[in-house]
């Protein structure tokens, strides 16, 4: 079953990237699926409607649930980053206050590997922040704030 969900998500990724004007070749190299499969996806072949429906439901989950499920499905953080950056339209402005003790718990928890420690203080790369707030929930000193940036 996980394979079907993955192909549903890959299908949606292909369609989304196609909408953005990427060629089949570019889509293939970006999401790591061979060109013939991309071609099948884009022509609506060899993919069950149930898988697509399920993938669509997953896309509607909260950022935290979404990243946890993609972690289970893909495992590799590069793939997680890929799918999150394609579908996550929101932007976040992470802020770390001086209460940060540099324990690195957020670094270890972040599935997007968006956080590193810089001189005993956490630093979050907004480009990869998916807004799951797991770092905020687990920070022992409540030193992280993730602000959502409104588009437009």
């Amino acid at each position, binding site marked *: 079953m996980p394979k079907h969900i993955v192909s549903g998500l890959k299908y949606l990724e292909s369609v989304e990237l196609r909408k953005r004007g990427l060629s089949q070749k570019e889509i293939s190299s970006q999401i790591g699926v061979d060109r013939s499969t991309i071609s099948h996806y884009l022509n609506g072949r060899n993919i069950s409607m149930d898988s697509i429906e399920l993938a669509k439901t997953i896309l509607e989950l909260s950022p935290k649930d979404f990243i946890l499920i993609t972690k289970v499905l893909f495992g590799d953080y590069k793939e997680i980053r890929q799918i999150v950056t394609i579908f996550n339209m929101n932007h976040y402005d992470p802020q770390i206050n*001086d*209460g*940060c*003790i*540099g*324990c*690195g*718990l957020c*670094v*270890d*928890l972040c599935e997007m590997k968006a956080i590193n*420690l810089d*001189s*005993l*203080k956490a630093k979050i790369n907004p480009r990869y922040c998916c807004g799951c707030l797991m770092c905020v929930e*687990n920070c*022992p*000193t409540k*030193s992280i704030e993730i602000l959502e940036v409104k588009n437009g």
Partner: protein
Amino acid sequence: MVNVKEIEGKDFNIKRSAEEDRILSFKDHVCIGCGLCEATCPVEAIALDEVAPIERKYTETYFSGHEKIAQNYALFKNDNEVKAKLCIDESKCVLCGMCSGVCPAGALDLTIGGVSIKENEAYPTLIASAEIDEDKCLFCKKCEAACPRASITIDRTLPNRADLVTGEIEVCEDDCIYCGACAELCPAEAIVVDKTTGEESIVIDKEKCVYCLVCKKACPVNAIKAVCRSCSYGEYDLDPAKAAITGNAIIDKETCIKCGWCEGVCPADAATVKQAFKGTLEIDEEKCGTCGACIDVCPCNVLSFPKSSGPGDRGTHLVKEEDYCIHCGACAKACPNGALTVTRTDIDYTPTSSKSWIAAFEALKN
């Protein structure tokens, strides 16, 4: 992200595995029971045992007047596995390393990817040191005796006694009657006389002889001749290289707490100690119940009862050697009457950009 606690006797490691493993290690024999870690921990994961006497063998005698402490001691005694001085709740610990940063004894150490935070420039570290300059050291071993933590080893080599002797003794066997008086009197047991009839002999061990001339003076027949190597032949002198005491002065960095006793007792100014905390230690004699709990816990042998002849004989009042106090506060924590006040006025540590770490170090001042 679950921490794993590995316990080995009274020592333990708390480990968080990720891309880089974080390991907080605790060594009970190094811990001085001061409780600075407990006060600093930002997540309240650390609990210091109520009483942490270093010499628990004295506890019963010293603490007998105090019900609470006596009960605690009973727990220690009845527990087959004596408790460690410190307990860290691994489910609360976030492995930030602040406890390791403020620990004046180095009993707690956080490593990230196998490297101690003491080696990491981003982290502040208490500046304290103890060194013995071997070029100046006379290897007298006074520091070894004074060190309250038994952290110093003086490994010395003395010159050969024979190299320091300026003469030799010779026996004229034609005159010797093998009476053995010389052998009996010799303080160095350098003479052996065999009186076996027909096989009489006298042998002087030149390695042992100290050229004191007692044998010559005692010989009833004047058979012993003394030859001074430094005058008769005019060519013998002590070789300074052979007469020198050589050695090594080794400080065990793990247990040394930089109290300064070695510097204080050194006759050659070879030991240099730098303490991390400056402050004061005050004794309120009105409140002091002369129970000796502070003496038991003090890692620096700063406190004592001057008239005490040992455990049980409590003396009348507490005295301090404040020069050697590292102001860790272990005594104040152990005192059941609040008779001791330790105040830290200055803390020397390496700079950091982290405001929360600076705040944690500054909070040690009181």
